[in-house]
């Protein structure tokens, strides 16, 4: 049970929140948030206690290792930062969100299942965790109960179900081919042939068309989660319709879950096949980042713009799968961390701005630097971080991802990705232009400085600068990746 301590703490916190919310109906709900944050902190403490412990429980179905610790940390951090600015949406004077207790409950449960997901070592528990991590997100997307929000939730549900269907079909095939549900046995089965349930030894599975078909289906399923082209279409609508807090959470948590899933499938199960997939991965990455960036140019709505921006970021991230060594694992986990803090720094300001002004247009930011100089500066830093401008960590992270492509001789991909960064700079600079060059409109005013939100923003911004300058974070992810890749080869 020790291994699951962080998860258990979170489940208990979630239940406690639900009970407290139910029992003290009339009370001030502010403390629910503090309860949730305490739970998150407790879970993080337990995570640090057994940081990087390589062990399994539940008959090998639940495993912790060095990389899973990092993923859990990223999930916890993302949830913590999101919650730190969620109170703005609940306590706002204009159209506040409702049902805070349930919201926190659902958020925490999503988090728990995401943490279970990265620890799953069995197809069944993996799929169940994935579904449990996705379904609450549909609900969160429709939280506002307006027509737009519900429509977004439904679109997300329909397309998400399609993605899960692909994935499930692929998993079914995998089970059919190898007769295994354990990820390690599956992997060796795919590589060297395996023992069928009837005692028949199957041969040459690695090159079997069914294996490739399963791989294709799994890739499609991953594509939905990671918003890879051509499976990205749900993202702009869902991001646009969801309450801004949820958009923030979707953009980081859903992506991190997708990455965790891709780690399990591509590095653990299809590790042999992955070696011959570099062209496909390069094409996916190219198409995704190019589409994301060029589509973002045309957007006038902030949330849709950020949706396409996050699609393009997924494209960069996917370049990491070009190798299956320490360097690519390290680069991807590092970039995930960078992306989470940078994007949440950005969204904490956008959430407040959109909530208070009710204006989701890019033009709504005009003169932001005059009315809110500090927020504008932090927002600019976050935008530059996403564009990969030094000395922010976004630059370092991208540099390491691009090095993975360069290491495998794909210089054209490095070039395409670098040009893409330039394109992305164009639309990020459009926001900077609105904030710094345009004059404020009469209706724009200074936004409140809520302590918790300012704290979250400070943490995220400081992290997005420091982890690019201080090498220790990158090096310790490197050590984690090294040991993890060592386990894979076993």
């Amino acid at each position, binding site marked *: 049970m020790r291994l699951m301590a962080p998860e258990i703490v979170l489940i208990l916190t979630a239940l406690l929140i639900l009970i407290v919310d139910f029992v003290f109906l009339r009370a001030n709900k502010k403390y629910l948030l503090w309860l949730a944050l305490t739970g998150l902190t407790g879970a993080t403490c337990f995570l640090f206690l057994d940081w990087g412990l390589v062990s399994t429980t539940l008959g090998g179905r639940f495993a912790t290792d060095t990389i899973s610790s990092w993923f859990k940390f990223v999930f916890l951090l993302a949830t913590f930062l999101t919650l730190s600015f969620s109170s703005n949406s609940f306590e706002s004077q204009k159209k506040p969100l409702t049902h805070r207790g349930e919201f926190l409950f659902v958020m925490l449960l999503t988090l728990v299942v995401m943490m279970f997901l990265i620890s799953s070592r069995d197809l069944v528990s993996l799929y169940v965790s994935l579904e449990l991590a996705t379904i609450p997100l549909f609900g969160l997307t429709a939280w506002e109960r307006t027509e737009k929000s519900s429509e977004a939730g439904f679109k997300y549900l329909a397309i998400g179900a399609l993605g899960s269907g692909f994935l499930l079909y692929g998993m079914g095939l995998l089970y059919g081919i190898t007769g295994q549900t354990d990820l390690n046995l599956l992997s060796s089965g795919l590589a060297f042939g395996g023992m069928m349930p009837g005692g028949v030894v199957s041969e040459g599975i690695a090159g079997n068309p069914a294996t490739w078909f399963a791989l294709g289906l799994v890739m499609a399923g991953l594509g939905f989660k990671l918003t890879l082209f051509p499976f990205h279409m749900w993202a702009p609508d869902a991001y646009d319709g969801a309450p801004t807090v949820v958009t923030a959470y979707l953009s980081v948590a859903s992506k991190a879950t997708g990455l965790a899933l891709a780690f399990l499938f591509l590095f653990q199960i299809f590790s042999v096949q992955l070696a011959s997939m570099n062209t496909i991965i390069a094409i996916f990455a190219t198409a995704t980042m190019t589409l994301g960036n060029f589509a973002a140019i045309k957007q006038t709505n902030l949330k849709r713009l950020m949706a396409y921006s996050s699609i393009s970021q997924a494209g960069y991230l996917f370049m990491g799968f070009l190798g299956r060594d320490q360097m690519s694992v*390290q680069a991807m986990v590092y970039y995930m961390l960078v992306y989470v803090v940078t994007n949440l720094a950005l969204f904490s300001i956008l959430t407040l701005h959109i909530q208070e002004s009710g204006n989701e247009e890019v033009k709504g930011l005009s003169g932001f630097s005059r009315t809110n100089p500090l927020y504008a500066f932090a927002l600019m830093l976050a935008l*530059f971080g996403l564009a990969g*401008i*030094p*000395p922010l960590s976004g*630059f*370092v992270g991208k*540099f*390491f991802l*691009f*090095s993975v492509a*360069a*290491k495998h*001789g794909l*210089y054209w991909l*490095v*070039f395409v990705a*670098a*040009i893409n*960064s*330039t394109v992305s*700079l*164009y639309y990020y*600079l459009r926001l*900077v*232009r609105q904030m*710094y*060059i345009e004059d404020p409109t009469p209706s724009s005013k200074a936004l409140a400085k809520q302590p918790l939100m300012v704290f979250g923003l400070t943490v995220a911004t400081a992290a997005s600068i420091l982890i690019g300058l201080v*090498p220790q974070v*990158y*090096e310790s992810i*490197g050590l984690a990746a090294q040991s993890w890749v060592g386990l894979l080869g076993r």
Partner: protein
Amino acid sequence: MGLLSLLIFLPLITAVFVVAAPKQNQVRWIALIGTGLHLALTALTTFKYLTEALAGTSSSDLLTKLFLVEKFDWFSSLGIQYLLGVDGISMAMVILTSIIIFTGVLASWNVENRVKEFFALLLVLVTGVFGVFLSFDLFLFFMFYEVAVLPMYLLIGVWGTGPKEYSAMKLTLMLMIGSAFILVGILALYYTAGAGTGHYSFELNQLAQFKFPQVIQTWVFPIIFIGFGILGALYPFHTWSPDGHASAPTAVSMLHAGVLMKLGGYGALRVAVYLLPEGAKEWGLFFMALTTINILYGAFGAIKQKDLKFFTAYSSVSHCGVVLFGVATLNLMGFKGAILQMFSHGIMTGLFFALIGMVYGRTHTRQIPEMGGLAKVMPWLSVCFYIAGLASLGLPGFSGFIAEAHVFMGGFFGNPWSAALPGRIMTILAAMSIVVTAVYVLRGLGKVFLGPLQDTHHAHLTDATFTEKLTTGILISTMAVVGIYPQWLIELIGTSIYPILNRLH
């Protein structure tokens, strides 16, 4: 913190003080004191560099050595280091930058709109520039390179004039595409050398130990050269430059044309030619041809311009072409000339843009046909303008003459590995630009300053104030010092060229 780190980060520290300043009117003084201190620090560094360099015993020892090195591991698993050093070339560039930023602060004394942000961004930009000149690890180099480029967007976009947003965006995006080229090139070199030696490192001198295979030489050289060339206004990638310069506020134009464009020439020499000598030999004549077009195109372009800033911007394209031409000649004379030209053009164009800002601040027009006879009302500024103009057309006694003479001699000498004739023809063509320069400079200045007064409102304008006299005085005396006694600069950079040159032979 070592001397070189301090040299890089002093502007950044000053920027922090600028932002923290309680009152708006203190900002200028803080910036001035910061850059003044920087000037003193540069002088100290030059002194230390010279004593160390001259104390170096045998001349062969001198050739590969960097001085005042600061080195520690940064991202050690990738072999990335924080490696600063200084040699003659970077020393000259640091001196140039330090002078330009000091005078740039003086020249923007009357900026009124958002003073804090303006000076802070200016200082951040210069931090990047110093970083580029002093880093000898390619990762660090590239990082500072981008830091130097990006603040330009806001500096032009917020404080510029005319179609400023368009110009700012065009400039930023084109320069970023340039850095995309550079990034690909750097990564290609890193992995090729790493795979070849088994030791992965971004250290410039470490990479230079490796002899890159022919295919890398052939293909990576033009990529890196063009990448830096975009910043150096290489034809046909120069189009950002006239728009950017015309829209930028005075100090930004000064910094941009004076220093930032030099990063292009510096990078082309330091990275492209140094690391890929065989590629340089293959492509030398091609880039000489491109830069010949540069020189002539810029000069002819300047004739047609009606706006003083466009006029100077095109002339900058022409003169920066001379820098890249010098780099592309691939011999000692050419390299020396290129660096001299970087220095001399930096000072000269800084003076030009500062003067344009001063005239514009009075007449509120930059259109040449709308002005005339200004020499009667502002004699000091007119004389300075004429000095800048004459220096720009290569009058002996000013720095431009020494530089262009070196470059064109280098071009005429040619190289043992290529036919002499094409190089000589191109040199003759390029040298003809001096005549064209004389045409546009004398015609343009004549229209503005001589003849009868065009606009009666101009009759009441004042001449230079004390700060303006100080600004122009510093720049002109630097130009004259280099022009009359260039030997100190030539000796300063002289020995540092040999490591690059030796790779070619």
